[in-house]
């Protein structure tokens, strides 16, 4: 709430950045965004009375909240999303998400916008591309592999008893077996 103006300003500034920074250009954003947020903070204190935040229609508001939950606060060491974090940079990022939704950008464009500025680190919902396919695919492989192993084990039912029966003709007797083991007579 506080610093609405400051953050609106910096969101606008971010928007103008967006036009000038080439998407492919990678650089260390953390330090610069720290500076931005400090700047934002000081502006916020200068303009204390809060202005109303951008109001969105319900459908867009829902989208905004969903995106905010999937973006990580880049400066918090708790792993919080910007939806839950109370840090200044999260406040700024929240209003930037709303601005961009109001501008009519798609969800993936918004995620790309933030990942270009703060790195993939901020994406709490890792996109299913590249190395993240390992992350998303491995549990499915485990599910499939485990299911196949379980099925194979349960299917072993038919032929399995045959070799055992060949080895050991007498019927199984747990008491006899225990006596054998306790006397070291071949249980192990």
């Amino acid at each position, binding site marked *: *709430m*506080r610093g609405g103006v400051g953050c609106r300003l910096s969101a606008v500034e971010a928007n103008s950045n967006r036009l000038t920074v080439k998407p492919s250009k990678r650089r260390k954003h953390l330090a610069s965004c720290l500076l931005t947020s400090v700047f934002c903070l000081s502006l916020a204190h200068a303009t204390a009375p*809060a202005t109303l935040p951008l109001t969105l229609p319900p459908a867009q508001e829902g989208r905004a*909240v969903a995106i905010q*939950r*999937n973006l*990580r606060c880049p400066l918090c*060491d*708790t*792993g*919080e*999303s910007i939806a*839950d974090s*109370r840090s200044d940079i999260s406040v700024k990022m929240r209003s930037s998400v709303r601005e961009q939704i109001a501008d009519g950008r798609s969800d993936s464009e918004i995620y790309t916008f933030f990942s270009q500025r703060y*790195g*993939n*680190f*901020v*994406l*709490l*919902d*890792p996109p299913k591309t590249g*190395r*993240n396919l*390992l*992350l*998303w695919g*491995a*549990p499915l492989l*485990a*599910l499939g592999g*485990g*299911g196949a192993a*379980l*099925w194979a*084990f*349960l*299917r*072993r*039912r038919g032929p*399995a*008893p045959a070799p*055992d029966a060949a080895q050991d003709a007498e019927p*199984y007797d*747990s008491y006899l*077996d*225990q006596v054998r*083991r306790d006397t070291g007579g071949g*249980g*192990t």
Partner: protein
Amino acid sequence: MLNLISFPSSALGSLGQIALLLALAFTLAGLALAVVGGIRADARVVEAARRATWAVFALLTLGILVLMVALLKDDFTVRYVAEHSMRSSPTWIKVTSLWGALEGSILLWAWLLSGFAFILSLTLRRDALRPWALGTMFVSLLFFVGICATIASPFTPVSVLLADGRGPNPALQNHWMMAVHPVLLYLGFVGLSVPFAYAVAALVTGRLSDHWVVVTRRWTLVAWTFLTAAIVAGGWWSYETLGWGGYWAWDPVENASFIPWLLTTAFLHSIQIQEKRGLMRSWNVWLIVLAYSSTVLGTFLNRSGIVQSVHAFAGGPVGPVFLGFLAFLLIVGIGLAAWRAPALRDEAEVPSPVSREGAFLAGNWLFLVFAFMVLLGTLFPTFVEAAQGRRDASVGPAFYNAFAIPLGLGLLLLMGVGPLLPWRRADGQGLMRALVPLLASGMGAALIAFVFGIRSAGVLITIALAAYNIVGLGLLTARAARQAGGLGRTLQAQPRRYGAYTAHIGLVVLALGLAFSGAYRQDAQATLNLRAAPSTLLHEQLELTGLREVDRGFGQSTIASVSIDGKPFKARLNTYVQAPGTLFPAPAVRYGLLGDTYLVVTSIDPGGQWASVRLIESPLVSWIWWGTLIICLGAGLTLVSPARPVARAVPAGLAPATD
């Protein structure tokens, strides 16, 4: 070289340190005696090892008492007290400071471990397993006592004597739940060391008796109950103090406590296959080794700081040592299991897919995939960092929920069908007949929910599965009561079965709480001005009625009194002297059976004119806490022995467990 003792600087510190060093000496001696006694099968040597646990327990008790006295007497010559306590804290904070930081929590851990070793020494049978089970407990003890007597000793001398201590971590002073959650968690983690000891003993000797199954199951069940309560208590702490209205964030350290829970839950089911059918013996041993290793992994993640988490306060110099211990456990466990696998071959016939065993094994499959998924998500950012040299990946709730919801629903489905199925092989037609009322009630419940306006697929399926489970358990109970001639009689005869049913019902209640609070949580923020007209937020009338500051000695509290639809709420923002700039919210929560109203202050005007608040309404959150209570009561009931425990166990098995 570490300077461990300085007599002139601190009498209490020296006493504590001596106790820890002596405990270390007895641990080493006990380990040596246990191994020698095991190899030579010499009962007198084993007896000496057994008594060594008493000495270790007594000395660690002395150590923990010394630390408690130092904390309560504000003796700042003791390093831990100087670093993590202060005069102005209330007494309960001083007590909980004992486990509020690394050194103290390791000491508590070691003490609980020695306590379990002591109980084990009294209950172990005089058989071939005894020296090896004791020896394994000594290995665990050696690790924890070794750490707390040396690199993470709370008693090492301080270089400069402070007039007042630095005080406890603010995040840990904010809620009384901090007195409960860590202790429960340690009881759960440490409790798993006993089944682990039995598993190693079974691997070393190649013997798995009926008795082994019974004691391992009981100890695991005790640890599991504590672990369940601890995980949910941690969620409650998060709900009550972190001010975001949630209880579970898939935080790496939360995950680290959840993985052992998943593995032990799988074990508690598959051990029953071993109990009744003599199957899955090496699998069960594996599960226990993995579950115990995962507790060490969890502690390593918590202590090493390689993952970012809300538990970052717990970091310390012991990360690499834990990693070493974890590697040791895994290598020894895998080595032993590979060596002994032939000895643990199953004798009985493999079960039919449609049978109680089949349902348990399918459950095991889902539990293991679940555990693997959580482990992968937790470690993936670390792998990426190792490969790329910087933190460039995060795994958030979106990933976990994508898998956890279907897996959880699958487990609920199996949970309903498991108790219906007979051991060995189910008759297909009979099963279908038994399933019809369940499926019908599930569909009916989902339809009613749909009519009442519930549209979320996950919630509808959860409701259907809840009804299906409850009706299934109800029908089974009714039938058993009719056969036994009364509900009371069947309850008395089968406490274990009805304990399990109760735990399942608790889980259903918990699942409903998770589904509704996850899907229908509402959240809104506003800035309220003092003496202004009420504002409407989530259909409630909010009015700021007062703002005041309270000096609590160890920190400040700003209290915002807000009236929500006429009911008073007092939400606080706390600051602590250790961290002057950081605000710790203490939300005002009104618990209700159908939903909670949760008010948290996000900022307060220094001039005292306005407060920004966040109002969260989540339905059925309290069902999570009640469900957990029911689960724990059910788990306790399964431990109650029926009148003739041994006589009952044997005829119940179709093929008695072997050896």
